[in-house]
């Protein structure tokens, strides 16, 4: 029996409505309990800010595309190199660090759970292998269905239950967690070198539109009673004027679920652009935020851009090609048969660049203009907008108008005419930050009942204690202290064990992988469906029996079973 | 005569590659495929032995006519024979010039060595001779 008692913690625990109460937290065998014995090890938090472990609900850290980002970027690897030390392995890389680099750096920032935003089913085994080497966080992966032939054919046939059945079979086979649509339809069109222009533009050959894909998959997702909603990367990422497409996509979504949103729209910053081209490019954060404020069924994440070098990587192959044509730097693309694709290019976001400056502003605006922090979560779409190590700066920007103004003074001078940011006075408080970095994520992912994102009895003892007293620090003025504190916990506790202390990781942990197995009736078991099997064997280059990810690949296996309505 | 030596995979090299000490592997990887005109010029018939001399040594192989190689080039399946005369310079890329090596070829009375023999020439000790 392992017991730990954290005393004098200043707790913000939004899922339980606790806002800055000083209390003790008792932990036994990795879970939070009402009380522990006198033999428990004691940590005195001395009133420091104590939050549930951070959760990143959209990041790219493991899998084929991420690894290709590393593979093609030895120059990136020259930054961030650390040697092996004690139980810790060597790390390399800045924007696309090694798995250990990701894990240690997230841990030092108090993050204990990560969702890989895009996993191609055919290559899922790779993602799971990398999860094993991401030792200090629990992990889960969204599975890409944007160009799935079976799904598109079922949609064309108007058979939503079959859509659900294919999703169910695939999630189970690849040990996936949620349903991801990246540029729905566009990734299939890209396998012909084409794209779809917006949600009404049909996919070549399959003759379904992105709108139909989004609507059908959302319905199927709810038929399967998945913990998470559909996770959507809208069409037309990164193009001027794309906000109308984004609004159109969000407008497709009914409110179908009482416990959580019906749609998670990711990295919306990249989808909130006005203008007819780069010359009149401008922010459209206001209409987007206004729209989301009226629709509880939508949750989004920021996709904040921060200035500096990074590597962009997404399943959105055509978008990356367009970026390549703008930047003329190196470009990788990887189409995956019958399923999806991906692209990668390195970028540098520059303050002196007007477009980049506007992008930087839009992410912040979305967070500040969205009334409920539960509806706009903090991300950079790591590493697309910036590497996640920039999160503390983003927190500080959201909490301090003064900091924003200071930064704004350094960006391209024409930015002010294109964005509403300078006029926004709002400063987020500690509670709202706690929502945007853990509680909101847990709720949006539907994992709060699994003990994630809160500190109530029964919860997993994933805890971040930051070296900061909120009664002593005014984030509006002391934003440097905020950055420092969120960059380096006093303690990061993972499943009841101290894994990081003052910037140093201490152990080589052992994580868990969450995945979902929807239980469907025999009639909807695609493993027994002759048509599905026949097409699989004809068009895939991997045998159907060799496709599913074996349980050997799941380190600590947390299967979530759902009762599907099919 | 001077030739450009190219090395590469062949089915037979692949089939015998896990049996490096077999006669079949030695036979395949000590074959020097040449254009028939070049062989005529050197007075060679199929399976005659030839001495190949590169910048860092010599090795004996058997010449075999092939329609796949151009005059002035020879093709040798990957293996210890070709490597016996290939220089280790990689031009700082990690990769030696496996496909562009100048060699002198002349007829010889010597027989090709065994793989074991080649390894022992370089300081090794054959295990299952």
């Amino acid at each position: 029996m392992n017991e730990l008692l954290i005393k004098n913690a200043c707790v913000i625990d939004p899922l339980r409505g606790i806002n800055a109460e000083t209390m003790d937290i008792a932990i036994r065998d990795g879970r939070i309990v009402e009380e522990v014995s006198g033999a428990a090890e004691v940590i005195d938090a001395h009133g420091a800010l104590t939050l549930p472990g951070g959760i990143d609900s959209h990041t790219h850290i493991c899998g084929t595309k991420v690894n290709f980002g590393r593979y093609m970027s030895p120059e990136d690897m020259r930054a961030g190199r650390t040697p092996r030390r004690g139980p810790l392995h060597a790390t390399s890389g800045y924007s696309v660090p090694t798995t250990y680099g990701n894990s240690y750096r997230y841990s030092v920032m108090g993050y204990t759970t990560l969702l890989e935003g895009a996993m191609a089913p055919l290559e899922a085994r790779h993602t799971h292998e990398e999860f094993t080497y991401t030792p200090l966080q629990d992990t889960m992966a969204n599975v890409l269905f944007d160009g799935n032939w079976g799904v598109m054919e079922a949609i064309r046939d108007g058979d939503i239950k079959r859509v659900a059945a294919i999703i169910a079979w695939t999630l189970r086979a690849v040990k996936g967690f949620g349903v991801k649509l990246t540029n729905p339809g566009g990734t299939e069109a890209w396998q012909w070198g084409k794209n779809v222009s917006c949600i009404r533009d049909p996919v070549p050959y399959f003759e379904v539109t992105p709108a139909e894909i989004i609507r059908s998959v959302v319905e199927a997702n709810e038929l399967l009673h998945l913990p998470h909603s559909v996770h959507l990367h809208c069409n037309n990422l990164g193009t001027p004027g794309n906000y109308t497409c984004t609004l159109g996509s969000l407008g497709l979504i009914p409110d179908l679920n009482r416990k959580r949103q019906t749609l998670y729209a990711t990295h919306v910053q990249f989808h909130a652009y006005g203008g007819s081209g780069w010359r009149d490019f401008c922010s459209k954060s206001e209409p987007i935020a206004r729209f989301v404020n009226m629709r509880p069924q939508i949750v989004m994440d920021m996709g904040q851009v921060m200035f500096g070098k990074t590597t962009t990587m997404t399943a959105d192959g055509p978008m990356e090609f367009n970026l390549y044509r703008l930047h003329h730097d190196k470009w990788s693309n990887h189409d995956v048969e019958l399923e999806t694709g991906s692209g990668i290019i390195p970028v540098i976001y520059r303050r002196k660049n007007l477009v980049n400056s506007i992008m930087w502003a839009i992410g912040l605006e979305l967070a500040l203009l969205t009334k409920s922090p539960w509806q706009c979560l903090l991300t950079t779409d790591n590493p697309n907008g910036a590497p996640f190590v920039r999160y503390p700066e983003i927190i500080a920007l959201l909490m301090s108008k003064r900091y924003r103004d200071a930064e704004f003074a350094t960006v391209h001078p024409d930015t002010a005419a294109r964005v509403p940011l300078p006029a926004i006075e709002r400063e987020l408080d500690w509670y709202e930050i706690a929502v945007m970095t853990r509680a909101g994520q847990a709720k949006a992912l539907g994992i709060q009942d699994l003990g994630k994102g809160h500190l109530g009895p029964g919860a997993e003892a994933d805890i971040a204690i930051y070296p900061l007293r909120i009664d002593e620090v005014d984030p509006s003025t002391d934003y440097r202290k905020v950055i420092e504190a969120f960059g380096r916990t006093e303690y990061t506790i993972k499943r009841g064990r101290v894994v990081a202390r003052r910037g140093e990781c201490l152990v080589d942990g052992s994580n868990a992988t969450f995945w979902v197995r929807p239980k469907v009736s025999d009639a909807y078991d695609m493993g027994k469906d002759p048509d599905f099997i026949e097409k699989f064997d004809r068009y895939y280059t991997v045998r159907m029996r060799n496709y599913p990810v074996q349980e050997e690949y799941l380190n600590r296996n947390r299967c979530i079973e759902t009762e599907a309505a099919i | 005569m001077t030739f450009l030596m190219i090395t590469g995979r062949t089915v037979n090299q692949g089939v015998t590659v896990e049996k490096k000490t077999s006669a079949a592997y030695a036979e395949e990887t000590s074959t020097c495929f040449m254009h028939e005109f070049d062989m005529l010029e050197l007075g060679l018939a199929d399976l005659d032995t030839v001495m190949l001399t590169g910048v860092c040594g010599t090795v004996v192989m058997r010449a075999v006519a092939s329609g796949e190689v151009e005059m002035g080039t020879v093709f040798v399946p990957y293996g210890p024979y070709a490597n016996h005369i290939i220089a280790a310079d990689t031009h700082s890329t990690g990769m030696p010039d496996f496909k562009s090596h100048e060699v002198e070829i002349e007829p010889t009375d010597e027989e090709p060595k065994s793989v074991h023999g080649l390894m022992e020439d370089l300081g090794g000790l054959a295990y299952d001779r």
Partner: protein
Amino acid sequence: MIVKDAVCPFCGCLCDDIEVEVEGNRVVAVANACELGTTKFMCEERLKGPILRDGDGWKEITYDEAIRYAADTLLSAERPLLYGWSGTHGEAQCVGVHMAELIRGVIDNTSSVCHGPSILAIQEVGHPGCTLGVVKNRADLVIYWGSNPIDAHPRHLSRYTRYADGFFLENAFRDRKVIVVDIRRTQTANIADEFVQIKPGGDYAVLSALRAIVQGKTETIPRTVAGVTREQLVRVANLCKGAKFGAVYFGVGLTMTRGKYKNIRNAIELVSELSRHTKFTISAMRGHYNVYGSNEVNTWMTGYPFGIDFSRGIAFYNPGETTAVDILARKECDAALIVGSDPAAHFPRRCLEHLADIPVIQIDPYPNATTAFCNVQIPVAVTGIDAVGTAYRMDGVPIRTRRVLSTDYPSDEEVLLRMYTLMQGAR
């Protein structure tokens, strides 16, 4: 007993539709595999147990002794080289990386002498590629450049290209054009619709010329480029631009000739140029069944795909300096661990001369050329035959191999883990 959907541990095609018939724990028949794969499944000439070089002879030793010897030798080295890895599964490769980190050695895999230059090129310009099934289902034009699949990847043509019908190609043989570019008229050239024969060393110039022609700058190009007429270059460029989906597969014919990675870079830049006109992809014909896996594992664990030097604790990468051939030829290592490859058969002689001078430990199921340079060889189970693990196909698709025979041999992973545990105890 017939094991279905077995995974062939020979080449980078990693065919996973093999049927292996087993009787009395021996493979008696193999269906669906090519000659290379069949022979591998049927191969029975294994080393019986660990052996130790003892002066001018060999003696049999126990696994415990061999593993202890290996751990001690590598721990005392100032710059141990850990080389090979492509012939084993990912789980073992992971232990290898941890070991290199711990003992501060250099870890390199066989890609340094196959597609290492391709990786260097990708690191300069990226890589527009795709999985093999995308080509099978869509490509109406396939170009083999400096690769000879009939000899090296026999089923590539039947599973993915020349003879492989796909979703959008009901009759691939009729509807898909194949161009072969090579310096010699290989067997693959004989089944091509168009054969482009280049003078040795001329690939780079031909690729540059094609890039210019695709941009419409034909007038600058001389009448012949490396033995290829301008007319043929224009015809090839037009075939490419006119294709709905083109796929280039290149082999070591490009990576091993002068210029090395610059050839690949130029080929990738040609494909990027063509991508402005139509859909085009390019991919390497990877050799060993899991050489790509060794790149993947090394990359997620160290940040670099091959040639990683941990001498200073942090990972340093510089092919040409930190790659096996260079290190051996320059005598820059003082011990070597060889796993899942046979450098004595595939490295230039100068490298072997250094192997003869330093302690060498080899983990390999078979007696091979490198055995002659070993101080200790430890036999192991064969991944894909009697050991199970992860391998990455040439296009990055990971597949778990199947076990077809039972065995008493330990796997590479087990042997390496035992060595690693001893090393951890000592450090």
